[in-house]
């Protein structure tokens, strides 16, 4: 596969075109917003929390396929997880997206075993200027999680 085709994998385009959990939550929730001022990408999310578990999530935003697909996959991945698990996921995602090959927690022998669909975003590593696109949802999630922890 060419780097371009690796960047724009089927699953990424699918999440871009059919984002999961799009909308907003009605009940009590925490809300966080993120913006990449350099490119105008926007992302926001609502988290509904019981104890230390994320019971529901809704996402909003607009921007490039990478930023929006990353947010949609992230939403899918965090529902039903507790704060510690989500923080571990954020850490692994960030490691996966750093350029230094050695740090990548993803197991090439077992695709999807560590971060599920999110592993498809590894193609972004070959396009360093786009890493911040993939990261937008995750900085927003970090914000939301801090708020949720403060409320708990």
């Amino acid at each position, binding site marked *: 596969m060419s780097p*371009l085709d690796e960047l*724009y994998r089927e699953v990424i385009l699918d999440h871009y*075109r059919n984002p999961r959990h799009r909308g907003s939550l009605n009940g009590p929730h925490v809300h966080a917003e993120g913006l990449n001022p350099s*490119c*105008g990408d926007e992302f926001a999310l609502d988290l509904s929390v019981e104890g230390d578990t994320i019971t529901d999530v809704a996402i909003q935003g607009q*921007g490039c396929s*990478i930023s929006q697909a990353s947010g949609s996959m992230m939403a899918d991945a965090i529902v039903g997880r507790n704060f510690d698990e989500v923080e571990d996921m954020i850490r692994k995602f960030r490691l996966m997206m750093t350029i230094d090959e050695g740090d990548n927690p993803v197991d090439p022998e077992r695709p999807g075993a560590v971060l599920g669909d999110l592993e498809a975003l590894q193609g972004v590593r070959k396009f360093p*200027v*786009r890493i911040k696109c993939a990261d937008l949802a995750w900085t927003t999630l970090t914000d939301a999680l801090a708020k949720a922890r403060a409320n708990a």
Partner: protein
Amino acid sequence: MTDLSALRSDFPILKRTFDGRELVYLDSAATTQKPVQVIEAVDAYYREKNANVHRGTYRLSAEATDAFEQARAKVASFIGSPKSEQLVFTRGATTALNFVAYGWGLHRLREGDRILLTVMEHHSNIVPWQMVAKLTGAELVYLGLDDDYRVDLTELDRVFDERVKIVAVSGMSNVTGARGPVAELVAAADGTNAIVVVDGAQLVPHDRVDVASMGADFLAFSAHKMLGPTGIGALWGKEERLEEMEPTEGGGEMISDVGLTESRWAPVPHKFEAGTPPIAQAVGFGAAVDYLDKIGMDTVRDHERELTAYALERLAEIPDLRVYGPRDVEGRGGAVSFELGDIHAHDIATILDDHGIAVRAGHHCAKPLMRHLHVPATARASFYIYNTPAEVDRLAEALLDARRVFGLA
């Protein structure tokens, strides 16, 4: 077609390759590439003439001052200025517009006065006016666009009354390529108290400008968008306006006398040039206008018109591609903004970059315009003298590849 391809060899950077593909540089609206003639003029200045200007008694300083003032004369004559003193060197178009806003607007605007703008302005011709409006209580009014992306003048009579004190309009949009209605607005302001400020950042590089016949009060532009160095631009003004205008920056070089509590300003243009100016950059700016003069601005314009027509034709062949800008190449420049299917502009730019093609994606520092067009972002290809039909063909091919990557059948 006007063939300028021979001059490509003057631009060293155009020989660069990315993954083995020759660079196709289609971002000249952001900044243009530089010919060796400009690079060497800057180099030679540093090697042979460098000294601070306007203060040395030694011969080297006199040579540096001559080189700086000669550059002023060249740039002034390039835009048809009656006198070279009417040309103030600034850091760029942005600084030039801020000088007018703070040096002229701030001292004259009163509560309830109006500043008339168009929605297609670049942020640099909006934000300074917002800042000054806030300080003075003046209000901003905007002209919208018609269906062909040109400034809609049908509302002009309604918004243009005695409250309008400043009209600020772009000579050419960096997003749609459309020309601004400078002549119409100058005519409307004629006989009123309003001054007309033209943002020439895109106009001056791409067409012959004659300030005498244009009739505007101020014209702002940047060297780096017309083959020159970064860090320098110009504000041209009518003599009376420049006399009326206060300096925005104080410091060395801009005074005739300094006392403990008050100072007197140096004559125009020096009162606006506080501190050591960008001397080498001015010399490079002079070399850039020499280069453009040698080609001839009519030839520059013809080449761009033909190439833009060809680009619009090739882009029209691509399914799902929408151009945001006038279809007719008369009255437009070579900035072509577009969207392709549901592919976000940044994704288009990434795919084109993979093909070695540099285009810009985003809001192009014109957020009010993007909202007016109801688009979050566009991709923009923009042309200059060194671009060729073959490069337009590569753009078209790469856009077809973008369709493939995104599975648009």
